[in-house]
């Protein structure tokens, strides 16, 4: 059994062995092995040219990665916490995202974003920043929820010729485990996974919230065979086919994400569904998300902030009864 975190390390190590153009840069990833130890031992194996400790300069090392990617290298940038991507927002949304469109030159860079709360990290270490980036054409965005996908999506991201934002959820790092034979495989970007089949309610989610949703099913009488939980896995480009097929079958939709509600990705999903599957809807599209506040530090506040099993179960029950 390996953890979600080990799966990320495996993907990185295998891709670095496979392709000498792959290199890593970020803060404290070499000597220290990364704030979360994802790159432990990498410096020893791959050397300081390919495992680069940077100063605290998110805009700078993001721009550097973009330049190296334009040269055909495949940089993987680690932001120590996804929250610090805010300091590189301009380089990510303007240089990385728009260069292929304007200039025709691919920018094969991966932005590793340790995401999410659940460990009392407070307002600047717990963020889910995906909504800041889904609106920027030119970026792809993936959010693995399982050990298998953590590895397969990272390999896909590294091999993709576009800037890919890889949202790795910190809460899952050591909590989810699975057997992975050391196989070399990719999970294609753009394909959602149906985690449970059902014909009365579609639950759309991704990242750590997948596990909250699956746990919630336990407490929903008759959920079995009724609730179809879809793990989006990729946010951009989102798997419209799988989403719409499910909604057309169930007629009810619950969207769950950890990010705050207003302007969150659930809105985009709701808009797609309310347009393209309207005739099939038998009930309101509901969202279970964090409230519109910064992520608070103190345990009771953060517990209240994070969408929980009860919130999901309550919303699901309501919709099933609707």
């Amino acid at each position: 059994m390996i953890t979600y975190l080990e799966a990320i390390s495996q993907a990185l190590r295998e891709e670095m062995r496979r392709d000498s153009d792959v290199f890593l840069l970020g803060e404290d990833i070499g000597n220290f092995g990364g704030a979360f130890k994802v790159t432990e031992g990498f410096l020893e194996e791959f050397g300081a040219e390919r495992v680069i400790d940077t100063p605290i300069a998110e805009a700078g090392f993001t721009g550097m990665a973009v330049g190296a990617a334009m040269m055909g290298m495949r940089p993987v940038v680690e932001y120590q916490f996804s929250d610090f991507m805010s300091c590189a927002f301009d380089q990510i949304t303007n240089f990385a995202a728009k260069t292929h469109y304007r200039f025709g030159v691919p920018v094969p860079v991966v932005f590793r974003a340790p995401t999410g709360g659940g460990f009392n990290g407070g307002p600047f270490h717990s963020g889910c920043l995906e909504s800041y980036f889904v609106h920027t054409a030119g970026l792809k965005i993936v959010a693995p929820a399982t050990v298998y996908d953590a590895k397969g999506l990272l390999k896909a991201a590294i091999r993709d010729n576009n800037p890919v934002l890889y949202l790795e959820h910190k809460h899952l790092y050591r909590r989810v485990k699975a057997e992975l034979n050391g196989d070399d495989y990719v999970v294609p970007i753009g394909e959602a996974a149906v985690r449970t089949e059902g014909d009365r309610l579609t639950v759309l989610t991704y990242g750590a919230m997948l596990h909250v949703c699956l746990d919630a099913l336990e407490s929903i009488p008759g959920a079995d065979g009724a609730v179809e939980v879809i793990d989006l896995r990729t946010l951009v480009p989102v798997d419209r086919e799988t989403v719409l097929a499910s909604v057309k079958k169930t007629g009810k939709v619950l969207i769950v994400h950890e990010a705050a509600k207003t302007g969150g990705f659930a809105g985009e999903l709701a808009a797609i569904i309310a347009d393209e599957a309207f005739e099939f809807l038998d009930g309101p599209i509901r969202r279970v998300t964090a409230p519109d506040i910064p992520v608070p530090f103190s345990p009771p506040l953060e517990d209240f902030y994070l969408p929980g099993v009860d919130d999901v179960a309550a919303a699901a029950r309501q919709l099933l009864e609707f």
Partner: protein
Amino acid sequence: MGDVSTVEEVGRDTLHRMLYYMKLHRAYEDRIEVVYRQGKLAGPVFVGRGQEAVGVGSAIQLGKDDFIFPSHRDLGAFFIRGMTPEAVSLQYFGRRDGPMRGRDGNTHMGDWSLNIGIFVSQMADTVPVAAGVAFALKQRGQNNIVLCYNGDGATSRGDWHEGLNLAAIMQLPVVYFCVNNQYAYSTPVDKQMAVECVAERASGYGMPVDTVDGNDVLAVYASAKAAIERARSGAGPSFIECVTYRMTGHGSHDDARYVPEQFFEEGRERDPIPRLIAALQAHDMVTAAEIAHMDARITLEVEDAMQKGEEGALPEGPEALTGVYAE
């Protein structure tokens, strides 16, 4: 610059206060680390052990209406501004009555009623913000000033560059301190910059730059004194690099494997607290009894703070929803 103030100059009273705050800073952090290891804290602990002279030797000189933006290792400066050990504990314990009401943790705190600014985790963001506070003071003709502290690592960020430049162009009453503890997390200064010291980096902005021994509270005091007078007189900002030693890992989770033992030895030899005591003793300005009394008092204060912190009430979940917007 940066020549050491003489003990006489500073005076017995101030020296005793500095010793007290340095000891309180040290004692508080020694204790909170224990509390952390006991698993009583939800979040991490960041300490300034060995760096106490920086915040104390500078903040001690401020008047009531001056402002500071401390870094996450300048606890002594918080105390000097009037934040109580109890308040800090309520903060660490994430209690409702802490300065951030449980909304943020550890040294991510401030108290505007005490003119203590806050920082966001994004390193160096306070540099332009402190300039803005200084701008308001200047605009209003108050002759108050701002002290802003950041680590060596923060000086690699663009906001540091932009903020220093703005302060210099506008000749704002602010003093920027670099608490150069020689590491940014696991990254030594020589991997952060291609120059010898942070002061070189600061030399391109058009403000006076000084480098001092950050483990010598009298050296910090002297350099800060000159810069503070300069700011107050309307002559504009200054930059002071205080070279010191981070005597722990980056945070309570970090065993600092990557730091050579040699580094800690140097830091221990240069420990600012014994050095100040030695200076005082050399001038018969402190007795063993006075020190013992100070230590006893601090022990009680810290114990009391930990107890009150632990006993404090946690906020209730729904309280999280209030106050996103001002009225």
